[in-house]
């Protein structure tokens, strides 16, 4: 074996050894797991996933038209006006809380909190059974976000007030007339 390759393997082993020493004991020890070559074992899996996604996208794109409404008209505001779906949670909060809180303080807080999660979560374990609090909190957060987006998308009609009409039929109007 070439010296270069041997050095590489030795370096990798050192890295693995250090990682094992530093890792908390509650993290699963994977040092005895079977080793495989990433090419083609790993690359093949990625390839299959990529092909599946491509086929899925092409099929969806053939059957489902992306929306294109009438030309933008700054003088005619559709009612209700909605942000893209991933921001509808924010818009929903804006309709309930003071703008400074819902539009600025809250999103900033969530982003900072998310970046800080690894430092706030002092529990060294990675086993789901030992992380009940973290998992429940995350599930709660996800549920709230999803609920807000669904409400914003389907249950907000004229003037963004509560409306079942978005499920039964689209009541959006432009300048008082149907869009």
């Amino acid at each position, binding site marked *: 074996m070439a010296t270069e390759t041997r050095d590489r393997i030795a370096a*990798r082993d050192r890295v*693995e050894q250090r990682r094992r020493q530093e890792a*908390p004991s509650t993290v*699963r020890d*994977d040092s005895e*797991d079977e*080793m*495989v*070559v*990433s*090419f*083609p074992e*790993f*690359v093949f*899996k990625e390839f299959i*996933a*990529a092909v599946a*996604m491509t086929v899925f*996208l092409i099929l*969806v*794109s053939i059957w*489902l*038209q*992306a929306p*294109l*409404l009438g*030309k*933008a008209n*700054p003088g*005619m*505001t*559709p009612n209700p*006006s*909605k*942000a*893209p779906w*991933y*921001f509808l949670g924010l818009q929903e909060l804006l309709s309930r809380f003071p*703008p*400074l809180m*819902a*539009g*600025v303080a809250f999103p900033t807080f969530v*982003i900072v909190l998310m*970046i800080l*999660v*690894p*430092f706030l*979560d002092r529990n*060294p*374990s*990675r*086993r*789901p059974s030992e992380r009940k609090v*973290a*998992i429940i909190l*995350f599930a709660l957060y*996800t549920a709230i976000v999803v609920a807000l987006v669904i409400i914003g998308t389907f249950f907000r009609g004229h003037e963004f007030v509560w409306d079942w009409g978005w499920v039964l039929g689209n009541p959006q109007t*432009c300048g008082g007339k149907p*869009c």
Partner: protein
Amino acid sequence: MTVIRAALDEMFAVIGQMVGSVFRHGLPLTDKIAARTALTNFFLHIHPVRVRRSWIRMSYTLCLGGLSFFLFIVLTVTGLFLMFYYVPSTSHAYQDMRDLQFVVTFGGVIRNMHRWAAHAMVITVWLHMARVFLTGSYKKPREFNWGVGTLLLLITLLLSFTGYLLPWDQLSIWAVTVGTNMAKYAPIAGPYTRYLLIGGRVVGDNALLRFYVLHVVGLPLAAFLLMVVHFWRVRKDGFSGGL
């Protein structure tokens, strides 16, 4: 006869040299050759040469990070195609979209792919984050990479949002009006931030150009840079290795 044979041999040797200059190690029939191929191939060097089977179990990763990256590539390719036909001005943009949908060969399908891939990417990036959270993979020594990932999620949302304006239809302009109105509520800097973002008090030509430039150059570059760091750190910090 011998002259022809010599010429043919020479030709095959040259072809062999050409192929060999591209693929150095032949077919990866043994692990050794496969490992060498991975070591010397630029496009494969993103992976470690050897991985543990538990790291790449589909039921563990669900391939969500890889799919997010793949969707980014799909969006880049389809986006390039759309750029050939699209002029970011209020007088052209909408008609260009109509042409893409009804005149340009495969224009509609490519536009649809761009649109749906963008939605899909928001979802896969989010799910990737959920997977990493639920498996506790952000814990030491991967704290930093979790932060990079959070920024990548933000950039994904911003990319999607800036792209939303470009068709210049009633959906775009009002969604972006509503979205950028949120920026107004920040104390002191709010109105200025909005003015900076859309280049005026209402969503018009300046906003379209700014969103376009951010969408096709600024944000993709930022995303690319962060992705390079993200993938690099996955290698350096180690795979989280299953539960």
